[in-house]
């Protein structure tokens, strides 16, 4: 075969060479950027955590004291819910749960919900969403203060019937022409609070972070 058509081997070798050069380029860039990318990813997570819980409230390495819980029946998502646990010394201070509102206008809305040990909300932020710009996006803190309305609330404030948007008889504002998005967020936050109420002992104690 090679006697008939030596050029095919040359072509293959050349193509191989191009592949090797491309891979080499990527290996170099990857090595150059790896640490920076890890740092960037951590910076973004920490910035988001910091927005829902003030730094001064805790003194542990929040992003390392993590539980992942899969409870589809409760959280309505197959993905594990990440729970960051904040402590001051040995005292549990708060948890931050990354929950999903699966019933937004356009797919999942990912939220961080910070809950103090007494069950009151330290803050809520939207991590990612694909709601319609101009309609659903006031849930972003950059676009409006709507999300701040959750601060300090708990399962008793408002009463259970109040955990809904105004249109449904609750206390939370909807947006003009957009009820689906805020409704989904309110429900997801309430779900996170109920989970915390039912399981907070477990959330703080399991597994002992020192032993993992």
């Amino acid at each position, binding site marked *: 075969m090679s006697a008939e058509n030596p050029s095919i081997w040359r072509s293959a070798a050349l*193509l191989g060479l191009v592949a090797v050069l*491309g891979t080499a380029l*990527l290996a170099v860039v990857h090595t150059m*950027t790896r640490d920076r*990318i890890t740092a*960037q990813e951590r910076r973004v997570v920490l910035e988001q955590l910091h927005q829902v819980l003030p730094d001064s409230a805790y003194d542990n390495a929040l992003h390392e004291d993590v539980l992942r819980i899969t409870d589809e029946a409760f959280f309505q998502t197959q993905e594990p819910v990440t729970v960051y646990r904040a402590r001051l010394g040995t005292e549990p201070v708060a948890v931050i749960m990354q929950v999903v509102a699966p019933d937004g206008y356009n797919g999942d809305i990912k939220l961080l919900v910070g809950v103090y040990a007494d069950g009151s909300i330290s803050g809520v932020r939207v991590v990612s969403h694909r709601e*319609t710009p*101009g309609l659903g996006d006031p849930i972003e803190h950059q676009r409006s203060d709507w999300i701040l309305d959750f601060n300090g609330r708990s399962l008793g404030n408002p009463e259970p019937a109040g955990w809904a948007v105004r249109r449904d008889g609750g206390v939370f504002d909807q947006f003009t022409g957009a009820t689906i998005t805020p409704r989904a967020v309110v429900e997801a936050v309430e779900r996170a609070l109920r989970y915390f109420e039912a399981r907070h002992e477990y959330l703080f104690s399991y597994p002992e972070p020192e032993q993992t």
Partner: protein
Amino acid sequence: MSNEVSLKSVMAEGLWHQNTGLVILLGLCPLLAVTSTVINGLGLGLATMATLMASNLSVSLIRGLLRPEIRIPAFVLIIASVVTAIELLMKAWAYDLFQVLGIFIPLIVTNCAIIGRAEVFASRHRPLAALVDGFATGAGFCLTLVLLGALREISGRGTLLADASLLFGEAGQNVTLTLVPDHPGFLLAILPPGAFIGLGLLIAARNWYVHRRSQKNEAPAREPVPAS
């Protein structure tokens, strides 16, 4: 194949006569998808421009080695490597912008304009010309993205340069121009149909301009014709 092309004409081709977004109409998917604001358009435009320059240069450098039967797979390998490298660099140095543009950065690979320039130009010209061609084609594409982004951002939200900090960091914090205070938001402009309509308007405007100029240039040579 003429290897001597004037760099000036290469620039003019890429920016105007063969503008990827307005004339050749390649790479429309990202063009339509990310242009809801100027900054998003500029971000993708710059990334595409960098890709074009790097892939054109690489293709031109190895053009002597390439034989017809492996040309296309070699281009694909080169472009994929370049785009992946740019994706990594963006993650490292412009992480917030990367999060906004997300999937459209890796999708630059599928922008036909890039393999088109590799095939039509870079594989037949010296490295400098190929680099300039990549720059011009990329700049033409980038300008179209920015124009369309501006059109949609002004009509859709009444602002310009919103979220500039994604691209320029701290320096971009306060450059957002609010042109229409209390703009109620014009959904059509922000959603994908607005991108199609906006692009249509830009193409029409360009055609109108070209047409008018060619008429002007021809007019003196012709006998004045009464309107029929």
